């Protein structure tokens, strides 16, 4: 019973209690860089979550055979390989998204959420727990990026997932598609998130 409860905890903590974006404020580079629309945020979130899941599984499998001194280089090679796989698949099958995300796809390699989970969790836990941890963190990340992208898209371009709901020549808050808007939107969303989850900042 305690085991099941523990696994549930592994999964849920990434979504709310230890949400990588709104609580731990990790991986800010892609978070602020690509979320100019909800679609971009969702795409980036899924790509990152996939790499996170695969690298957590791989790291958890090889954790006992890798000497402690070279574990970080080994993790980086594993992560970089999965990122390259994602990059090739996106370019082949979703070229539109590949163009939109651009340089941020290779930069998933240095996303500290992924290396952080590999080092702090997957290298110490069994494969089942690592999968649940990656899924929880991944979903938390996708959710945060999609919400941030949606807010910026609604305010900045007057549309959601590309569906425009304002007239063509309407004045929208262009600020929110530009980099400063990313910081402002993220700050307010973080406040809102922590308020809703009853956290004192």
């Amino acid at each position, binding site marked *: 019973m305690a085991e099941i409860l523990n696994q549930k905890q592994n999964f849920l903590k990434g979504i709310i209690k230890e949400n990588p974006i709104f609580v731990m404020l990790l991986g800010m580079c892609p978070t602020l860089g690509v979320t100019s629309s909800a679609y971009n945020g969702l795409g980036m979130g899924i790509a990152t979550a996939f790499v996170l899941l695969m690298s957590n599984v791989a790291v958890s499998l090889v954790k006992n055979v890798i*000497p402690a001194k070279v574990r970080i280089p080994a993790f980086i*090679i594993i992560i970089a390989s999965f990122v390259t796989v994602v990059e090739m698949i996106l370019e082949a099958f979703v070229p539109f998204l590949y163009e939109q995300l651009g340089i941020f796809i290779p930069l998933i390699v240095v996303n500290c959420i992924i290396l952080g989970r590999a080092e702090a969790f997957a290298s110490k836990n069994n494969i089942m727990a690592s999968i649940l941890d990656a899924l929880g963190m991944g979903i938390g990340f996708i959710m945060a990026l999609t919400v941030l992208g949606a807010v910026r898209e609604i305010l900045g371009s007057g549309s959601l997932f590309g569906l425009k709901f304002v007239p063509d020549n309407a004045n929208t808050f*262009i600020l929110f598609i530009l980099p400063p808007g990313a910081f402002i939107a993220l700050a307010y969303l973080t406040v809102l998130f922590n308020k809703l989850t009853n956290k004192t900042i």
Partner: protein
Amino acid sequence: MSKKESSFLGMLLSLLIITVISGFSLGFVNDLTIAPKAKAKLEKKVNALKLVLPDFDNNPVEDMKLIKSEAVADSVEIYPAYLKNEFVGAAVIGTTDKGFSGLIKIMIGFKPTGEIENVVVLEQKETPGLGTKLTEDKFLQQFKGVNISTFKLKVKKDGGDVDALTGATISSRAFCDATQMAYDAFIKNNGSLIELKN
């Protein structure tokens, strides 16, 4: 001593094995995706060609010519279009690095007379919401059916005929620059393109 040696060997081996595995699996995925990747690229090009050219029945991608140009270091790509062996126009790739964030790449379809049939923007990194408006019809509309020999390809602020985008004069200027480059390449080679097929 021996312990240290063995751990060194252990480190070496574990890293070696990981890199070899990752290298081979990347090669495998690359083999899988290389065909769809090329197809996606080609599809995008063909779609753009269909937009900017009048009806054609040849394969402009196969008939593509690379032309040396003084304006840019790279050669210029020209895609000639033929209908029943008659030259009906050509699509030219115009590039400029004078955009607000560097490279802008456009494809322009010219009729044999030098009139612009249509323009599409292939690549740009302009400011979202300002410079990116140059990909929208509202801006591109003004170039349709225009003959550049009688049209001043400059923004109105510089004494030309082009309506610049609000808040994105630099992007608009760069667009004119790329259009001019494509036009020059087209006019220089117009004659040879007509003869080629006949």
